[in-house]
């Protein structure tokens, strides 16, 4: 029987939400790893019961947990993330050189074909890889050693590599994003990288059109059209039709084009979702109304989706990895808030229901379909 599992990472533990294919009734399992920050959990596309979790705390550092049974039991795996070779410096907030220093894993991206292979995006920005199911991790250093690396500067959340997108046609082609360096792509399995930020314009940096230095918040791709990328930048929603070689703005009629999360409908590659957020400092929804905005034209024309979402007195945020879609029909969409709610829609965003209301602040949401 078809079911859905939603993996939720929060500031104080992980939760596993499960439902059948109707997605009307949910069970909430957790907290797992209570008291720890769970920046991200994700299942292997090749084996949905193989889950990986990034667990950490300011006290005891970084851990990686792995489950082979869909989250029933977990085993701590290797947690040594040591940069390869001399680390050098990047720019600090005040513009001075600052040594590269590992802090945490923001994002885990399991291989599309091999459950034992996972990519990890870390702070300070770098990419690591395991090919033995998480027992050991090695850096893919060409990214950090890119000629622009010494000029990368952290965003407010740190110098974090938070987005990893694997091309289903060829897993050697990978798109990543770093706050606040921008987007980069490799076409050769991380041997070489190049910035893919042409068309981005960021008023907060000395050269608004710079090749590197943009605060990209998240990127999403539909697996049937790997060359079409959608980006939520610090400001601006952007679109690329050529794998990031160039971008155009598609913010259109959004009430604010700031936000963190962005995702693509599972069956409609031109249907995308964002959650506009008021900024630069507020980081809550405009007018206290929590609204998902949907574009069915790949951007520019947006409609608010409000049914079931609070339309007054709502001042939560939705973070970059806290939105996900399932592949059922109709497509399910899920997002979590810093107020601890996880909302789900089983009808492509037309209506929403809080699956759970009172979790710790939600950092990440990942949906899986189980058959």
């Amino acid at each position, binding site marked *: 029987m078809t079911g859905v599992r939603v993996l939720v990472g929060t500031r104080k533990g992980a939760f596993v939400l499960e439902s059948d294919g109707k997605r009307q009734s949910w069970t909430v399992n957790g907290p797992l790893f209570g*008291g720890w920050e769970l920046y991200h959990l994700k299942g292997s596309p090749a084996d949905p019961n193989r889950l990986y979790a990034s667990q950490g705390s300011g*006290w*005891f550092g970084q*851990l990686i947990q792995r489950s082979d049974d869909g989250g029933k039991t977990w085993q*701590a795996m290797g*947690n040594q993330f*040591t940069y390869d070779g001399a680390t050098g410096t990047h720019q600090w907030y005040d513009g001075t050189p600052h040594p590269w220093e590992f802090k945490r894993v923001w994002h885990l991206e399991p291989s599309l074909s091999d459950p034992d292979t996972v990519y990890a995006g870390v702070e300070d920005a770098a990419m690591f890889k395991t090919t033995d199911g998480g027992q050991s991790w090695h850096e893919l250093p060409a990214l950090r050693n890119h000629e622009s690396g010494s000029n990368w500067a952290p965003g407010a959340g740190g110098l974090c590599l938070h987005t990893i997108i694997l091309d289903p046609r060829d897993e050697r082609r990978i798109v990543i994003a770093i706050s606040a360096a921008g987007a980069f792509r490799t076409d050769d399995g991380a041997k070489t990288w190049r910035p893919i930020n042409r068309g981005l314009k960021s008023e907060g940096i000395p050269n608004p059109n710079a090749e590197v230095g943009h605060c990209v918040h998240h990127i999403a791709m539909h697996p049937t059209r790997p060359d079409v990328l959608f980006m939520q930048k610090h400001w601006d929603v952007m679109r690329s039709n050529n794998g990031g070689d160039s971008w155009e703005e598609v913010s259109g009629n959004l009430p604010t084009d700031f936000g963190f999360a962005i995702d693509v409908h599972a069956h409609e590659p031109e249907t995308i979702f964002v959650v506009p957020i008021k900024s630069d400092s507020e980081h809550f929804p405009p007018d206290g109304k929590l609204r998902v905005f949907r574009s069915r034209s790949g951007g520019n024309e947006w409609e608010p989706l409000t049914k079931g979402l609070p339309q007054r007195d709502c001042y939560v945020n939705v973070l970059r990895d806290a939105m996900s879609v399932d592949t059922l029909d109709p497509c399910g969409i899920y997002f979590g808030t810093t107020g601890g709610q996880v909302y789900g829609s089983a009808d492509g965003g037309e209506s929403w229901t809080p699956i759970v209301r009172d979790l710790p602040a939600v950092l990440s949401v990942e949906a899986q379909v189980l058959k």
Partner: protein
Amino acid sequence: MIRVVLPAHLRTLARVDGEVSVDVEGQATVAAVLDALETQYPVLRGTIRDHVKLTRRPFVRYYACEQDLSHDPPDTLLPGPVVKGDEPFLVVGAMAGG
């Protein structure tokens, strides 16, 4: 045999209840106890001190016999009562944070 008290989160991680005991070969220094602890419970590597530099994590403290050994050199000998097993060596998570 050195008795070691771990903070709750690390006991959960190491899947132990209460105190643990470790054998230390040679001199019973702070570093030797931590080496033995990490050998016995590899999952604790990186949680108390850095993997490579072996420096103490900032929000972790080492106490024994009502003394704070956190800032002492790693080759500091542990107090006699700890070496004899009368008193435990405490690994403490700082009381801080939200």
